[in-house]
C-alpha cells in the first residue's frame, strides 16, 4: 500500500474521511447555528428575564414570566382561540382546496387559465387581501351583507368583524380564501400522477364516480394530505398578519391568538421577556403536536 505509507502515522484513512466530512458540513452547521440555534437560545434566555423593549435592558426573573402566563389564564384562553382558528380555517382550506383541485383536474374549459387564476389569493399581499375583505365584510356598505339581504338570508346587516362568533368565522373564511391555493397546488400535482388505468379498472369493476373518489383518489392523496395538513397547521398556528389586520385580536379578545399576544407583549406592553415566554410556550405546543404527528405518520407507514 504505497498510498497509505505516505500518510502521517496515526492518521488512518477513516480518521481523515471523518475530518473531511466535518469540514464539508461546517458551513451548513455555522449558518444554521447563526440563523436558528442562536436566536432560539436567545429567545429562551429572554423568557427568563424581565426586559423593557425600548432599551432591551432587563434582569433575571427565573420562571416568573411562565408562572404569570399560565396563572393569569391568558395563555390557555389564547391557546384555545388559536386551536379553534387553526382547526376551522384548515378544515375549510382542505375542503375547498381538494374540491378545487378535483375540478381543475377535469377537462374543463379554459383549464390552464383557471389553474393560474386559482393561485391569485396565495400571491396577493396579505395587507391588500385584508383591505379588500374588510370592505366586503363592512357592516354598512359591504357587499356580503348586501348580497345576503338581497337573497333574503338575513333581514338586517350583520356585524361581521365586530361581534363574536362572526369575527372568528370571518377570519377563518379569509384564511381559507388566502391559503387554499397551496392545497390546490399540492393535491393537483399528486392527482396528475395517479395512473389513469386505476380509474379504468375501477369503472370496469363497477365503481361509480363516488366510489372511484373514495377507493382510488382519496387513498392516493393520503400522503400528500398528511404533509399539507402538517405544514399548514404549523403555518396557521403561527399566522399573525392576517388576523392582526382583520380584527386586531378583537372584539375584546375574541380572535386574539398566541402570535397576537406575543406582539402585544413585545411592542404594546414593551414586555420583551414576557413576549419571549409566550413565544417559547407556543413553540413547545407545536413541538408536542409535531412529535405526536410524526409518531403517527411513522406508525401508519410501518
Amino acid at each position, binding site marked *: 500500500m504505497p498510498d497509505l505509507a505516505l500518510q502521517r502515522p496515526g492518521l488512518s484513512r477513516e480518521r481523515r474521511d471523518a475530518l473531511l466530512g466535518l469540514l464539508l458540513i461546517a458551513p451548513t452547521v455555522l449558518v444554521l447555528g447563526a440563523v436558528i440555534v442562536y436566536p432560539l437560545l436567545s429567545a429562551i434566555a429572554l423568557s427568563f428575564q424581565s426586559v423593557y423593549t425600548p432599551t432591551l435592558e432587563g434582569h433575571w426573573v427565573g420562571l416568573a414570566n411562565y408562572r404569570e402566563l399560565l396563572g393569569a389564564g391568558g395563555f390557555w384562553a389564547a391557546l384555545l382561540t388559536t386551536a379553534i382558528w387553526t382547526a376551522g380555517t384548515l378544515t375549510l382550506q382542505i375542503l375547498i382546496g381538494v374540491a378545487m383541485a378535483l375540478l381543475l383536474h377535469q377537462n374543463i374549459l379554459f383549464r390552464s387559465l383557471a389553474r393560474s387564476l386559482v393561485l391569485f389569493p396565495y400571491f396577493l399581499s396579505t395587507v391588500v387581501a385584508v383591505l379588500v375583505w374588510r370592505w366586503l365584510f363592512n357592516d354598512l356598505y359591504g357587499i356580503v351583507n348586501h348580497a345576503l339581504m338581497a337573497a333574503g338570508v338575513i333581514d338586517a346587516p350583520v356585524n361581521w368583524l365586530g361581534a363574536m362568533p362572526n369575527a372568528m368565522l370571518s377570519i377563518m373564511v379569509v384564511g381559507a380564501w388566502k391559503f387554499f391555493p397551496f392545497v390546490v397546488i399540492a393535491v393537483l400535482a399528486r392527482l396528475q400522477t395517479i395512473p389513469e*388505468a386505476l380509474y379504468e*379498472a375501477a369503472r370496469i369493476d*363497477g365503481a361509480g364516480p363516488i366510489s372511484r373518489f373514495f377507493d382510488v383518489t382519496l387513498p392516493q392523496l393520503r400522503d400528500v394530505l398528511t404533509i399539507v395538513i402538517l405544514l399548514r397547521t404549523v403555518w396557521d398556528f403561527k399566522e399573525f398578519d392576517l388576523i392582526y389586520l382583520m380584527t386586531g385580536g378583537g372584539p375584546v379578545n375574541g380572535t386574539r391568538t398566541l402570535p397576537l399576544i406575543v406582539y402585544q407583549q413585545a411592542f404594546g406592553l414593551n414586555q420583551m421577556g414576557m413576549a419571549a415566554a409566550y413565544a417559547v410556550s407556543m413553540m413547545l405546543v407545536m413541538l408536542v403536536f409535531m412529535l405526536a404527528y410524526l409518531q403517527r405518520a411513522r406508525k401508519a407507514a410501518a
Partner: protein
Amino acid sequence: MVQVVFEKVSKAYGDTVAIPGLDLVIESGEFVSLLGPSGCGKSTTLRMLAGLEQPSSGSIRIGDRDVVNLAPAARDIAMVFQSYALYPHMTVAENICYPLKKRGVAKADRAIKLAEVAALLQLEPLLARKPGQLSGGQQQRVALGRALVREPSVFLLDEPLSNLDASLRAHMRAELIELHRRLGKTMVYVTHDQLEAMTMSSRIAVMRAGELQQFAPPDEIYNRPANVFVAGFIGTPAMALADGSLADGGGHLVVHVGSLAVALPFAANGVRPDAVTVGIRPEDVLVGEGPWQAQVRLVEPTGYETIVALDADGLALTARVPGSNALRVGETVAFDLRRERIHLFDKSDGRRWEPAGR
C-alpha cells in the same frame, strides 16, 4: 353463446383516424389475439370493446346485446391491464373482491369466490399482502384473479405479459393457455409479441394502421399469409421478400426472382399477375446442395440452429441451418429452395396469389 361482433366500427381522435372501419366476429370460447406493430390500433379496439373508449361509428355486440351505449361495468367483461392497475392501498384479497363488493355481493359469498380464485391462481399465501409487496408475476396473477372472480363472459387482456421477464413470460403463457382451456371463456388478447399470439390463440387478428389484415388460425397466418404485410410481419427471422415475375416454362409455372429462375411444381394455366412479390421463408432455403450459388453475408449461431444471411447475386435471402456449423462469412455456398412453399403476392395490391393446383 357469447359472440363478440364488431360491425363497421371506426374510431377517430380529432383528426387522427385510429380505426377506419373494423369488421370482426369472435366466436364464443375463442382465444383471439390482436396482433400488430405499435400504434396499429390494438388497444383502441380492445378499449372500445371494454367501454373505455366510445367508437366514432359502428356497433359492437357482446352476445345479443349492442353494448356501445353500455357502461364498462354493465358489459359482462373483465379486463387485465398491462400495468395490472391493482389498487395499491388494498390487500390482494380486497383487490380481488373489489368487483364483487361494488356489485353488492354479500360478504360470505365474496369469501367463497375469493377462496376459489385464490386456489386456482395459487394466491393463498399472498392474500394479506399489498400489491407493492408482490413480484411482477404475482401482481399479474392478482390482476387475473380480479378479472376471474366475477366470471364475466369475455376476458380482455392488454399486453398483460409485457412487463415480465422472458422466463416468467413463458411460464405465464402456459398458465393462460391452461386457464383458457379450463374456463372455456372468450378471451381477447392484445399483444405485439407474435410468439404469444402464435402459441396461445385459436385465431389471430393481424392489424396494421387500424385495418384488419388477416383473421385466421396461427398455422394459416404463418403458412398462408394473406398479403405482403402479414408475410413480412409474422415469422422470425422474417421472410425474404423480393420483386419477381411469373412465366410459363413449358406448362410449368416459373418464377423469376433476382437472377434465379425457379420452376414451381404447379401448372401455368389460368390468369396470373404480371408482377409479383416473392416470399421465401428461412426454413425453405436449403443450404449445402442445389442449382444456385450464394455468398454468406452474416452468420448468427443461436445454438439450436444458425441463421445465415445469403446474397444470391443481389437477391437477399435468409436461411436456417440446423445446429452450429462451419459456415464462414464471405464463403460461397450452393443452395436449393422448397419450391412448393414459395409464397407469391400480386404486386399490384399485395394480396396473396395462389397458383392453380396448390
